[in-house]
């Protein structure tokens, strides 16, 4: 609870009377207090706004894709235009939604509070990272409006550097700028977790969301610079006509090595934070401590490390050596193990827990099912003989959408709903939220499960036209996409509604453990009136030992 003492960060804040609490939202007003804020909570809200916007931009491209694919002919648009649609869908979703989503919104908001700190280590750098995100987004959107890019989000050379007449450079530079935002956020998280934990908060007393965010940040720091230099080289090649990655002297496969060195770990950047959210949700809504805390924590680190050793599995048919392919394939099997350990541990956490079915838990359970399917199909792809047949088909598209959408977006929505009362001081309407979660689950599976079948039976990806034997599956997929889209619009509606009409939430509406639930909803500007001291492990719930096991 906040006291009536004036906050030095907001000197012009109105002095609260006995009834009104000062929190980070009402401590000051006006656009300057938001656009020049260094409060990590406000920056998280700023990110929420721009990232939601970009999500709908990426979603719009998805709608266009599914409209075109409802019929076998390329009848809605020219194939070149269709190429731009899936390229821009990928770029916006990957770089501007999935990579920054959970870290920049939930991570920014929660990490200092979860470790008992007043802010991140570098608050001004945090604000700078938001401005860099916005700058990158504007750059990329401008490139898209000025004609778009048609290379695929993977920018493969020599097409991207020599042949494509589209706006490769502005969009590549936009992604590059986004990389800087990503790096600054990760740097902030790493230093904060190392140097600003509250007294008594040793590493193995940290919530698992922190472990996941920390592991994600390591991946960002080590991988993002490589995509940065790769995109710089692509831009240089295009501008000066220097054949860095184009035949005869330049090697396109070298581009792919450098590109995937980052872009494979990037998928772990996208999933690890969601896994961190799931650890929080599963324990909270089974009122039970996590099964195998150390295993889950170490698995996050193992995923971060091993994730860097498998990139060649994107290049099985590109022309790399058979021996390198074998090594990458073997390592790709190994990297699945820590993810599987996590799924087992989450499931074991549910066992004999006191499970309740609130919306965040629905998303968490959906995650368990859909991420498992996505992960298993990843193992299918890691087998070279199978990959040779299904690579560049819709099987791959379904695989990564099961993980990115069935996994990450479910985790994201679960987290947003779980921490919504903390961030806003309002509860969302539970009935609407449950309905939306179910609609999302149904819509998602209808959209993407047929794609496994389509891809396995031969439908290639990145084609505007396809053989008519795939039409039924595609119509199902497009129908599912409209349901899924509706499911995503619902939270957008009722969450905004709840800001004005939602029930006021107390400090701990879910009745769960965690430092963030021991301060008011919304928290005061400095998070805690006194730095808390931590004396026990997370997720300690009273356990009733049964008389007979």
């Amino acid at each position, binding site marked *: 609870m906040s006291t009536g003492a004036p906050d*030095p*960060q907001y000197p012009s804040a109105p002095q609260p009377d006995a009834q009104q609490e000062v929190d980070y939202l009402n401590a000051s007003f006006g656009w300057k207090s938001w656009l020049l804020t260094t409060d990590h909570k406000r920056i998280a809200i700023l990110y929420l706004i721009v990232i939601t916007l970009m999500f709908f931009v990426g979603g719009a491209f998805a709608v266009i894709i599914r409209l075109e694919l409802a019929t076998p002919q390329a009848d809605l648009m020219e194939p070149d235009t269709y190429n731009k649609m899936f390229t821009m869908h990928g770029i916006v979703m990957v770089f501007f939604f999935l990579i920054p989503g959970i870290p920049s919104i939930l991570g920014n908001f929660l990490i200092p509070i979860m470790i008992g*700190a*007043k*802010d*991140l*280590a*570098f*608050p001004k*750098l945090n604000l700078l990272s938001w401005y860099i995100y916005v700058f990158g987004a504007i750059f990329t959107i401008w490139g898209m409006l000025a004609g778009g890019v048609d290379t695929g989000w993977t920018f493969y050379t020599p097409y991207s550097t020599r042949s494509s007449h589209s706006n490769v450079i502005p969009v590549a530079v936009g992604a590059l700028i986004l990389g800087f935002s990503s*790096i600054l956020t990760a*740097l*902030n998280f*790493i*230093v*904060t977790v*190392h*140097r*600003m934990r509250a007294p008594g908060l040793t590493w193995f007393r940290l919530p698992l969301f922190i472990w996941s965010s920390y592991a994600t940040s390591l991946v960002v*720091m*080590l*991988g*993002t*610079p*490589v995509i*940065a*230099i*790769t995109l*710089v*080289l692509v831009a*240089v090649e295009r501008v*000066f*006509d*220097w*054949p*860095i990655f184009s035949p*005869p*002297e*330049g*090697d396109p496969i*070298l581009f792919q*090595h*450098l590109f995937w*060195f980052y872009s494979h770990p990037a998928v772990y950047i996208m999933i690890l934070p969601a896994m961190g959210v799931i650890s929080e949700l599963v324990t909270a809504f089974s009122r039970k401590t996590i099964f195998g805390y150390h295993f889950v924590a170490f698995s996050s680190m193992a995923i971060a490390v091993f994730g860097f050793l498998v990139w060649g599995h994107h290049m099985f048919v590109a022309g790399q050596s058979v021996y390198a392919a074998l090594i990458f394939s073997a390592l790709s099997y190994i990297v699945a193990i820590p993810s599987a350990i996590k799924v087992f541990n989450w499931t074991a956490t549910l066992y004999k827990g006191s499970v309740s079915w609130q919306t965040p838990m629905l998303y968490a359970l959906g995650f368990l099912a859909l991420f498992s399917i996505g992960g298993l199909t990843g193992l299918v792809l890691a087998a070279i003989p199978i990959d040779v047949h299904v690579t560049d088909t819709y099987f791959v598209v379904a695989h990564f959408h099961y993980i990115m959408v069935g996994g990450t977006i479910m985790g994201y929505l679960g987290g947003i709903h779980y921490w919504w009362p903390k961030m806003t001081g309002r509860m969302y309407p539970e009935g609407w939220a449950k309905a939306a979660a179910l609609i999302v689950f149904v819509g998602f599976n209808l959209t993407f499960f047929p794609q496994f079948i389509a891809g396995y039976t031969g439908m290639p990806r990145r084609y505007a036209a396809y053989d008519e034997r795939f039409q039924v599956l595609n119509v199902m997929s497009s129908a599912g996409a409209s349901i899924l889209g509706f499911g995503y619009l619902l939270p957008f509606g009722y969450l905004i509604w709840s800001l004005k009409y939602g029930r006021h939430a107390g400090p701990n509406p879910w009745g769960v453990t965690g430092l963030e639930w021991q301060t008011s909803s919304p928290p005061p500007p*400095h998070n805690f009136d006194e*730095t808390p001291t931590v004396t026990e492990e997370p997720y300690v719930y009273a356990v009733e030992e049964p008389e007979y096991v």
Partner: protein
Amino acid sequence: MSEHAGPLAHHFEDIEQQKDAAALGMWAFLATEVLFFGGALTAYSIYRGLYTKGFAVGSSFQIVPLGAINTAVLLTSSLTMALAVHAAAVGNRAALVRNLALTLLLGAAFLGIKVYEYHHDYVEGLVPGAWFHPTEEVRDRIRPFEQQHGTVDFRQVELYFIFYFVLTGLHALHMIIGMGVLTIQLVLVRRGWFGPEYPTPIELTGLYWHFVDIVWIFLFPLLYLLRHAGGGH
């Protein structure tokens, strides 16, 4: 950077925590720079392995004494930077100003020599792309090499120069940014900032500057000194 109310920022418990966090932050950032240059160096190393002859010839066109002098200039600037950091820590303001200014001066000298080298390459027709037309005199220079190793494909030499300009260009860009920060800090020092109670920003600049020096420590031999194509070729 210092605040109006003293150097301790509100979200840190004490100045030690703040200094530790700042240092860790800069080291972490430098780790990203290792991977940034490292990506370009990985590509360079692959091509050097594939096109050993062409790259050896490319290296042979560099003016080694100039590169060596530039290396010495940058190493000296690292010395003056370290001395500046030390001066800030012990509160010797005159030495701090002097050493920051010397570091800046040496950095400028490095860039000046680089500009001369770039111009020299342009005159010899070795700038890649539209400007790549090696002069007859340049081609004659490598006749002894070609007698021993066979004809050289000048497209490989062009690829070498692409990497030469990209690597040294990125390095120069980092130097310019560093010199910008040094200039700002030089101005602020004369206004009384960065005393011994909070010399950390100078230390952070020092870490960055030394890193840029380390990059050159590797670029110099990789670009200038590998003029050999081996016996097997």
